[in-house]
């Protein structure tokens, strides 16, 4: 691309002037205030225009506007005509104020607008045909005086500027800065997604979690509400079922009543028809008469003829009592004194007998009474003797055995006698006592018999003597006792005798005989008295019985007479024949039977009438029928309300008793009430729950928004990461490619430009930092050279970069403003020569105020390829 001309319609101090440029090298010389820099800027503006995009103007843009706006306030406008390497001739019209449109028109194609090809930030930018833009063009091909002066402030600035050129062909940002910007943006706008971070993505994650939680809560609440709805529905169904059951039973009760009413209606109609609507007569009168007849008949039936008498009359029996013999004179019993005396006497005899049986005295006792009482008649007791030992023992043994046998006999006899007759107890006792004595005597004899013979030895004799002495002592004692007993017996005998006498008994010599006789006489009298008493008692009982019988006969006769009278009276009242009691009886019985039938009929009709009255309850049959019809309608209606057939209800009513239905109804009513209450309570709670129901849709939308935001941030994160990755790769690759090319270009021109002071150069691929190799074989950083040398090195670097960066299809013009100002005269010439040589490949425009440069131009430049323009102070 080559610039043919630039027209500054209004640009800084320039107004309506055109500057034509040679195709190869143009030197524009002028002193101070000759608008040299304005023209430099005008060419740049004519080619690249001004950014008209969004945002506030940057500082360099503001500075550019301050410097180059028309001084007279006119329309800031500049145009240029460029010739592209593809042959097109383009006129660029830059409205720098933005009042009207900018354009790029192809002059060879009828001024066709080609702005679209090079539009950049709202204005045509011809540097885009070079593969640059207006900012990178400034960085590489358009070297302004200020930038050269900037070298003086520090080589780092220029180095950074070149790095930008490598990254973006001179835009403001280096690749490193771009990466740093991406990193910062990622940190600020995405952040890390971990628990400790509070960056946007973390906040968005939390927001999404919270939104999801709120959504879950809303859904849970909604689901809970739905479950509660189901529960309430279930409770309501249960309540409805219970109420249905209750209502069914209620209708069944009503149906039961209707059934009952229907039965009453039927019954009432029947009763009414039977009665003819007239109350029946009372059966009381008939009933009373019937009762009288019945009583008369019953009385007659109940009374009997008095029985015939077959015994003695009472008076005769009383006579027989009066004729009974008198009672015998004298005692009928022994009396107490006699019995006591007799008992003492017998006891004394027993003691004496016992004493005799234990006798040690061989002499006969002088107690005749005792002995006589103890021995049987004709036998006298023998006094005990002392026999020889052997004989005596045997004899004594035999005697003792005999005595014992006799004694035993007497005891048995006595006991038998005592048992056999109470009247002979005393003699029996006596016989027993005597027997006992004899047994005792036999025992003593055996004792004596058991002793050994006396004369066997002296010792035995001594013993016998001792025994004899002992016998003597016992004899004395025995006699002493016998005397005492005899004395007591005598007193007893005397007492008995006196008692017998007192009782009027005849007492002879033997008081015992007198006693026996007296006892027998008493027994006889006693027997006689008893017989008479028995006879009297029988008679008196007969008298009592006879009198009772006689009274009964009298009463029966009276009752029969009365019954007959009533029977006849009844017959008369009833008008039946009463020729005889039997006739009256039969007639009355027949009458009574008829009367009872009539009375029963009256009673039945009367009951039916009462029943009818009770059924009607002061209502008419029509009213009752109306009530029945109304009841039936009600039951039918209510049955239909319950979706039932009335027959089903009546069937239920008939299957149960009213009481049972009532109980069931009460139970079901209670159940229904409880179920309804529970359902209502649950319904109330549900209503309250419904009022608090959260909006699920809102929560879903909130989740959607939060999810979208998180997705946006994650997409952004991925895109930032991807962009960074691509940019890092591009940066590394470009630096690897550009650095050798730049170094090669530098190496080719550096010795010439620096007058062979520096022979070689290297470029750090990462930082684009330049090092030069001097003639002393030392590598030095370009930053450490003199200002002029540094400026020259970086001028070469710019040109080298532009060679690398500019599109290969176009050549890039160089617009240089006072680039040799810090070079010495030799290097100035070398630089100008180098530029002139370079202008064969690309257009070079050099602005200068140096006389040496102007002189060189006048000498070296050849028109029309080159040109020298001299500007004059405005």
């Amino acid at each position, binding site marked *: 691309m080559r610039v043919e001309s630039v027209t500054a319609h209004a640009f800084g101090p320039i107004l309506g002037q055109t500057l034509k440029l040679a195709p190869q090298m143009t030197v524009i010389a002028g002193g101070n205030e000759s608008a040299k820099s304005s023209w430099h800027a005008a060419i740049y503006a004519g080619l690249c225009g001004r950014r008209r995009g969004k945002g506030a103007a940057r500082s360099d843009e503001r500075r550019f506007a301050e410097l180059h706006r028309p001084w007279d306030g006119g329309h800031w406008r500049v145009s240029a005509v460029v010739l592209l390497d593809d042959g097109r001739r383009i006129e660029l019209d830059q409205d720098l104020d933005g009042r009207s449109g900018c354009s790029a028109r192809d002059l060879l194609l009828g001024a066709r607008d080609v702005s679209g090809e090079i539009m950049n930030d*709202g204005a045509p930018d011809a540097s885009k045909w070079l593969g640059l833009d207006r900012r990178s063009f400034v960085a590489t091909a358009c070297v302004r005086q200020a930038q050269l002066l900037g070298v003086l402030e520090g080589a780092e600035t220029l180095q950074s500027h070149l790095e930008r050129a490598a990254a973006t062909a001179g835009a403001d940002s280096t690749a490193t800065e771009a990466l740093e910007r991406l990193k910062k943006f990622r940190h600020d706008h995405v952040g890390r997604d971990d628990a400790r971070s509070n960056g946007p993505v973390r906040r968005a994650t939390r927001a999404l979690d919270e939104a999801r939680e709120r959504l879950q809560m809303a859904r849970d609440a909604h689901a809970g509400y739905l479950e509660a709805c189901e529960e309430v529905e279930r409770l309501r169904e249960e309540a409805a079922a219970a109420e249905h059951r209750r209502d069914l039973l209620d209708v069944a009760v009503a149906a039961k009543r209707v059934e009952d009413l229907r039965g009453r209606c039927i019954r009432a109609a029947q009763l009414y028809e039977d009665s003819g609507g007239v109350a029946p007569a009372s059966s009381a009168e008939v009933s009373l008469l019937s009762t009288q007849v019945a009583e008369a008949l019953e009385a007659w039936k109940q009374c009997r003829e008095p029985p015939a008498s077959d015994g003695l009359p009472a008076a005769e029996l009383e006579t027989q009592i009066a004729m009974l013999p008198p009672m015998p004179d004298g005692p009928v019993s022994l009396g107490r004194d006699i019995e006591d005396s007799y008992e003492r006497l017998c006891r004394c005899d027993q003691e004496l007998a016992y004493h005799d049986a234990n006798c040690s005295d061989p002499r006969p006792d002088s107690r005749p009474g005792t002995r006589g009482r103890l021995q049987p008649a004709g036998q006298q007791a023998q006094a005990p003797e002392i026999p020889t030992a052997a004989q005596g023992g045997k004899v004594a043994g035999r005697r003792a055995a005999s005595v014992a046998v006799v004694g035993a006999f007497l005891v048995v006899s006595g006991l038998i006698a005592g048992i056999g007759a109470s009247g002979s107890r005393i003699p029996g006792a006596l016989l027993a006592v005597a027997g006992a004595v004899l047994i005792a005597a036999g025992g003593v004899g055996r004792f004596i018999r058991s002793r050994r013979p006396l004369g066997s030895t002296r010792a035995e004799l001594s013993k016998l003597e001792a025994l004899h002495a002992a016998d003597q002592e016992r004899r004395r004692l025995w006699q002493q006792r016998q005397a005492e007993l005899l004395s007591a017996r005598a007193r007893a005998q005397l007492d008995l005798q006196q008692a017998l006498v007192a009782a009027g008994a005849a007492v002879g010599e033997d008081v015992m005989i007198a006693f026996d006789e007296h006892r027998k006489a008493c027994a006889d009298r006693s027997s006689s008295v008893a017989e008479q008493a028995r006879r009297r008692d029988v008679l008196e009982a007969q008298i009592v019985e006879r009198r009772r019988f006689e009274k009964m006969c009298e009463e029966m006769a009276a009752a029969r007479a009365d019954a007959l009278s009533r029977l006849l009276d009844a017959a008369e009242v009833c008008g039946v024949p009463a020729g005889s009691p039997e006739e009256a009886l039969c007639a009355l019985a027949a009458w009574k039977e008829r009367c009872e039938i009539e009375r029963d009929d009256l009673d039945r009709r009367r009951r039916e009438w009462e029943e009818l009255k009770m059924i009607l309850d002061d209502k008419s049959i029509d009213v009752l029928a109306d009530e029945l019809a109304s009841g039936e309608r009600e039951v039918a209606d209510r049955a239909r309300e319950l979706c039932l057939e009335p027959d089903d209800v009546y069937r239920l009513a008939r299957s149960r008793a009213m009481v049972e239905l009532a109980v069931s109804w009460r139970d079901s009513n209670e159940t229904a009430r409880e179920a309804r209450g529970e359902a209502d309570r649950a319904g109330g709670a549900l209503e309250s729950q419904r009022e608090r129901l959260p909006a699920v849709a809102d929560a879903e939308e909130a989740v959607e928004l939060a999810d979208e935001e998180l997705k946006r941030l994650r997409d952004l994160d991925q895109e930032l990461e991807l962009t960074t990755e691509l940019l890092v790769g591009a940066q590394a690759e470009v630096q690897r490619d550009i650095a050798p090319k730049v170094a090669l270009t530098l190496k080719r021109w550096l010795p010439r430009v620096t007058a062979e002071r520096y022979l070689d150069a290297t470029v750090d691929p990462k930082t684009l930092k330049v090092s030069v190799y001097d003639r002393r074989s030392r590598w030095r950083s370009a930053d450490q050279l003199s200002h002029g040398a540094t400026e020259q090195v970086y001028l070469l670097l710019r040109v080298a970069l532009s060679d690398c960066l500019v599109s290969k299809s176009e050549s890039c013009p160089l617009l240089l403003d006072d680039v040799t100002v810090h070079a010495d005269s030799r290097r100035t010439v070398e630089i100008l020569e180098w530029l002139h040589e370079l202008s064969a490949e690309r257009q070079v425009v050099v602005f200068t105020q140096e006389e040496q440069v102007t002189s060189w131009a006048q000498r070296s430049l050849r028109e029309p390829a080159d040109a020298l323009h001299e500007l004059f102070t405005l």
Partner: protein
Amino acid sequence: MILLSLPSSIPRGRDLSPGGGAQGRCIAIMIHPPDIIEIMRLLLFSDLHLDAPFRWAPAGAARDRRRKLRETLRRVADLAADLDVGALCCGGDLYEHDRFSSDTGELLRATFEDLYPLAVVISPGNHDWYGPSSLYRQVAWSPNVKVFSEDRLAPVSLAEGLTLWGAAHRAPATTRNFLEGFHPDREGVHLALFHGSELGGFAIEERGKISHAPFRAEEIPETGLHHALVGHFHAPFDGEWHTYPGNPDPLEFGEHGDRGAVLVTVSADGSVSRERHRVSSSLVSDVTVRVDGARYMDQVMDRVREALCSCEGFVRVTLTGEMDPGVDLRTEDMTRESVAEHLDGVVVRIGDIRLAYDVDALAREGTVRGLFVRKALAADLEEDRRRRVLVMGLRALDGREDLEVR
């Protein structure tokens, strides 16, 4: 037979859409042949989806959309009353079971009660399925409301000789074909009202929608039905044997066709004629705005304003075209208040936006930027992501801070 005659005061095909009014424009007019005696007129609607979420809308706008759905229900009811139809029929998805709000039940109850004695017949769908906890069970409906509750077709006699057979979804999914094994058990004209998926060619339009209670159109005459009034597909469709009214109020962008309520006139021979009435309470429309040559955000917003000035309702704006890369495009700044206050809502999305980078020229650069561009172009990326990565990198190299690309 009870013959219903049309009141002369009822305007046919009345448009109840905003601005329609009593003298609104007619969407479609079906003229009955004179020899066909009509026995009843029904108003059909379905898929209102009360309380549905609008995930594409900002929070406030979403709530506004839901309010509009409620207004549409009112419009449907008003239309039924104005047309003096024999019954108002709903083909399901009247509301969303999983999302209904606290007053939805009362809204439905009061709206339908106001129509008394006009019959309202509802066949619950998969979104408002009939269950123990559904609103249909909780609401104390007025006597004129009939909600089908069985998962088999059950009859309702609408007029002498006209039976409407309806069924309910009893679960949110797995509902079987209602027509399978069905035959009317009586004489006369038989219509069906249910929520189901027709498996024929029409289903193509609703691809992606789960098939509920699937059936084929040819099954309708085979069962002995004269016509089926069906909900589920949101696109309107007038088939020979069945009618989908479509969702009466927009739920998504890009919905086309005459959606709304359908006046179904049933003739004595079982044939039906249909008039579609727009009942939506708002419009939802898509607008594409070209941003070619825009150099800054204000220019883009000006173009959006210009494009929206003649729109109404809720508008989704899609930005397309070639735009200066320097434009700091922020869709979140383009709110209803900033671009079109007269609209119900605005959603702006980035469409085929091309930034006016000369990518080819940049790619030819020997710079890091050029190589970055070449690498980005060569990377295996989706085009939209490639665009964002490219712009992001270029902005970073330009020294810009607004690196995020929408």
